[in-house]
């Protein structure tokens, strides 16, 4: 008979062996952790996360809304400061600045007349499709610009005049108009690019045109083909600016479709900055195409321009048309 203590000792060692075997077979999840970790002392702290280079506090979420996993995004404050301050400055500089420049130009130069006076003879400058494309894009742009400016600055400029309810109503309608007219505007941009890109490739004539002041400074009329250097500048700002507005605008139209909150903020900033610059450019375009120059509006109005206007502003193009003959000299209506 072995002593009881020996049996107990053997049993104990067998149990210990079994336990150690189980431990080897199925190691518990925490087995690799050093026991010195104190889960409360090593807990994640908000302060540390906010001290990161690009501070965001995000984690895991159990609801399907993936963007809800971002707990705190301090970048929202940067976007707020862009929206409240930077955007207002860009708008003030481009719109009021351009307005001031044009007013000064009008007082110095007045309306630019046709030097030789109207000839009474007309030549076709833009055909029906060209004019349709222009007015499709222009019409959309004006509504998009006004509704966009309303959402950016209406709270300060328009709301005090209309009251909160009426202003909210027109802003709501403006939002719908802005969303829907985006599509014909983009269509217009595509057509515009296809119709006019061949006449808008920059060349040496444009350099000479700019050197001569483009006819804006001084009274010289530097030669130009269908589009002069200034018009090419307008064309490319519309195409490139329009492309930037289209990309950022579509991202904004479909919020959080493959984009994060940072992408959405960036898209809004690009959309606002580019559109304000483009509005400034368009104010100049509208001025020179209407009040600012005798005979200019006809190009997009009836499509027929006065022969003397064409010879002064687009001498090379007028000569080309004359050489082609046929439709160049039509009697006045």
């Amino acid at each position: 008979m072995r002593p009881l203590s020996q049996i107990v000792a053997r049993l104990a060692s067998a149990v210990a062996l079994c336990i150690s075997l189980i431990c080897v077979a199925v190691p518990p999840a925490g087995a690799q952790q050093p026991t010195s970790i104190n889960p409360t002392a090593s807990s994640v702290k908000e302060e540390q996360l906010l001290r990161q280079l690009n501070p965001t506090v995000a984690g895991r979420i159990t609801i399907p809304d993936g963007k809800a996993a971002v707990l705190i995004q301090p970048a929202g404050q940067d976007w707020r400061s862009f929206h409240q301050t930077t955007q207002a400055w860009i708008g003030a500089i481009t719109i009021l600045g351009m307005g001031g420049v044009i007013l000064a130009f009008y007082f110095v130069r007045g309306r630019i007349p046709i030097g030789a006076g109207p000839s009474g003879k007309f030549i076709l400058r833009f055909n029906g499709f060209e004019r349709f494309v222009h007015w499709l894009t222009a019409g959309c742009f004006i509504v998009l610009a006004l509704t966009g400016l309303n959402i950016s600055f209406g709270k300060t400029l328009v709301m005090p005049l209309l009251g909160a309810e009426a202003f909210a109503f027109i802003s709501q309608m403006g939002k719908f108009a802005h969303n829907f007219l985006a599509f014909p505007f983009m269509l217009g941009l595509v057509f515009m690019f296809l119709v006019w890109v061949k006449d808008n490739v920059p060349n040496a004539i444009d350099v000479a045109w700019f050197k001569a002041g483009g006819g804006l400074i001084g009274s010289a009329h530097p030669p130009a083909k269908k589009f002069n250097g200034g018009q090419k500048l307008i064309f490319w700002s519309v195409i490139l600016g329009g492309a930037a507005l289209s990309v950022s605008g579509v991202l904004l139209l479909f919020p959080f479709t493959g984009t994060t909150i940072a992408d959405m903020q960036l898209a809004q900033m690009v959309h606002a900055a580019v559109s304000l610059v483009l509005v400034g450019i368009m104010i100049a375009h509208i001025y020179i195409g209407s009040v600012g120059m005798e005979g200019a509006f006809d190009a997009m109005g009836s499509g027929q321009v006065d022969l003397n206007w064409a010879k002064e502003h687009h001498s090379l193009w007028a000569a080309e048309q004359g050489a082609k003959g046929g439709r160049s000299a039509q009697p006045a209506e």
Partner: protein
Amino acid sequence: MARMKFLCDADRCIECNACVTACKNEHEVPWGINRRRVVTINDGKPGERSVSMACMHCTDAPCAAVCPVDCFYTTADGVVLHSKDLCIGCGYCFYACPFGAPQYPRVGNFGSRGKMDKCTYCAGGPEADGSAAEYAKYGSNRLAEGKLPLCAEMCSTKALLAGDGEIIASIYRERVLKRGYGSGAWGWSTAYKETVKT
């Protein structure tokens, strides 16, 4: 007047999501909208923490600053509320909000947003307190009945605290002092430009 705030004691939150469910039920919040949510930081790592988050009812609220139709207002209790009659669903408040609080029902074309919905601190909206119109747009108005937000009231571990900022901060401070640790009053430095010194 009290200055109402939320404080989530992440060392107590067990991520049960009861606050989320209670909120949805109390206010009949539609599908796809969560006025409150629970986010787990460093999930599965030692020292992970869960934080229950909704609108923090910020001081100098960013949403109100960027709103193009000025639909936000702050009550005498410091609660940030908005008018769904004025809201046009532009989404700007979501870009500015540090806490992702504004929610939009998906109505109409594209990804376009309906009237914004967010935590009201159980304080309804501009309509008459406790009216049917108020309930339909914003949910129940517990504050007008002298009750605190339901999410905090029914929190099983009392991790989520709601009430006057001074009082809930002192409760949290006392807890940290007694147990010897605390991961901080999440969101306070961003929302209220102050931290709870412990």
